[in-house]
């Protein structure tokens, strides 16, 4: 039995190792090539940089200059932080209401949230861009409610699952202790939602930080976010692309979100499982 278990473990380990390599290899190539001169990137992309090909941080300096990186970085940060905060606060409140107030209306709203998860963005993007532009949402702050709309389906789903598992008596105790609905939510319910809030924050932050299509359509090239800035910087006639700078910018773009993920990743599994099991 033990040897069979060990064999199973070895097979799982090998499989997961293989998967990790497949996923990490492109990132490895990007980091590797961000330290090489542009001619060597195209010529021998897999080679480790040596004395002749290593250019130090030159690509990083070029990339930052070329893509107007800092303003784009700031815009992306504002959009991501603003959207994630809005999603966590508003969807947790919505989920609490849906779970605790059981009637036909809340049930319908819940299923609408779920339905929104399966509608592909491409299907609604042109109509949505047109409506959003007319409503004046084509700005750095204006895009936050749009992200709130897109992020709410999955977030309400995760929060509802978790809230269903919370004992109702705690909220009743808060009511007797003198809390109204808002205070009950913010002082008692919301702190208990911490694991799911972090999961929702991570999943949405990763998506919003890396999103290209929505900011490109809504904000255009005037208010570039990081992913749009990187894309625009690589445009040009064939051969004119600075691959070194491009790689360096990619590395810079993923660093904040990787740090955020590593900082909070222990909560992500707990949040997803709690929602799934208790839901």
């Amino acid at each position, binding site marked *: 039995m033990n040897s069979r278990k060990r064999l199973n473990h070895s097979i799982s380990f090998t499989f997961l190792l293989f998967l990790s390599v497949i996923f990490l290899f492109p990132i490895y190539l990007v980091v590797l090539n961000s330290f090489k001169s542009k001619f060597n990137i195209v010529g021998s992309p897999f080679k480790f940089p040596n004395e002749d090909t290593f250019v130090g941080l030159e690509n990083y300096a070029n990339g930052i200059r070329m893509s107007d990186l800092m303003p784009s970085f700031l815009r992306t940060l504002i959009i991501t932080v603003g959207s994630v905060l809005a999603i966590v606060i508003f969807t947790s409140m919505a989920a609490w209401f849906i779970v605790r107030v059981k009637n036909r209306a809340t049930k319908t709203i819940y299923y609408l949230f779920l339905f929104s998860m399966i509608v592909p963005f491409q299907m609604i993007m042109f109509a949505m861009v047109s409506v959003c532009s007319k409503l004046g949402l084509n700005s750095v702050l204006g895009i936050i409610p749009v992200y709130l709309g897109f992020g709410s389906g999955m977030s309400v789903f995760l929060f509802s699952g978790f809230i269903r598992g919370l*004992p109702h*008596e*705690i909220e*009743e*105790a*808060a*009511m*007797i*202790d*003198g*809390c*109204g609905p808002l*205070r009950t939510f913010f*002082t*008692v319910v919301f*702190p*208990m939602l*911490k694991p799911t809030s972090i999961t929702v924050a991570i999943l949405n932050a990763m998506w919003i930080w890396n999103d290209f299509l929505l900011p490109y359509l809504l904000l255009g090239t005037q208010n570039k976010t990081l992913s749009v800035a990187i894309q625009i910087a690589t445009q040009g006639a064939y051969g004119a692309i600075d691959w070194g700078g491009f790689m360096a910018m990619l590395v810079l773009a993923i660093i904040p979100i990787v740090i955020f993920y590593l900082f909070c990743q222990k909560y992500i599994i707990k949040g997803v499982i709690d929602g799934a099991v208790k839901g």
Partner: protein
Amino acid sequence: MATIRLENIKKTYEDGTTVIENLNLDIKDKEFIILVGPSGCGKSTTLRMIAGLEEISDGNLYIGDKRVNDVSPKDRDIAMVFQSYALYPHMSVYKNMAFGLKNRKVPKDEIDRKVKEAAKMLDIEEYLHRKPRALSGGQRQRVALGRAMVREPSVFLLDEPLSNLDAKLRTEMRNRISILHRKLQTTFVYVTHDQTEAMTMADRIVVLKKGEVMQFDTPSVLYNHPKNMFVAGFIGSPQMNFLDTRIEVIKNSYFAVSESFKIRLSERMYDALSLYRNKDVILGIRPDDLHINNGASNENNPEKISAHIDIVEMTGSDYFLYGNTGNQKITAKVTAAVRFNDDTDCELSVDTDKIHIFDKVSEILICD
């Protein structure tokens, strides 16, 4: 300090289920009232209606002189201890206890004094900075009591607060709650399905069945003079014996007769039984009122029931004898000083002064 009055209270849920039809209760100031009954009898619903956590479909609820049907829980001047304790998991014990006072804008130093006083009374001073998850069940229960205590409410509501504790801790907490009631001098309304809790703690007990009050009286009245078979069966452990008998009058004496025994009844019952001559009734005898007859005639209890004992349970100071008389089940509680074996025949003498007789159809007490 407050009286509680429930006037024609009705509770119907949205799906049309009526849990309580017409409940009337008058609870005196500083009284310790226990609502007891089997699952689904409406005892928790009644408590939750007093707390304001459940809407009242019809009738009036008064706390003191004020009608509180439409008053929110926070304005009813009540505190509640829940079965699951319902402590705030992200707050320390201190913050859990202080939360209600903080919401009511009580000055900080007063909160501190009250929390520390309650913690001292409940022996939880050393846990004040711990989170609830780092406490045992008994400690959590004490924190829940402390949280209710610091508020100094007019009414204390407790919903099966001991049901999650083990037997030993339950006894300890029972004593603590009784002492607490004496110290606080507040009206307590307590819900349980455990009749031992009810008998040991309450000033008066409300026995509920399907949302109806079966009897509302002191523990000793409930035990010695139950109004019906439901109360007689629910209060007391082991349960009262109910034996099918027929009332027969022989030479001006009333007898309760079955195929396996014939008991001469006490004279004081004759008037009440005059309408039941030659009719079937239910004879109620508590297991404590059956005694072992060691062959010798017992002057005080000359009436006997022949029984076959199947199983003998030793509980320490007593034996519980489970057996049959004729084809009817019978249980006796006898002192462990007499040695007894399984699967034996015996004669049980009956304390006729403590017999209860019930109407077979309505199950209401005829006389006792």
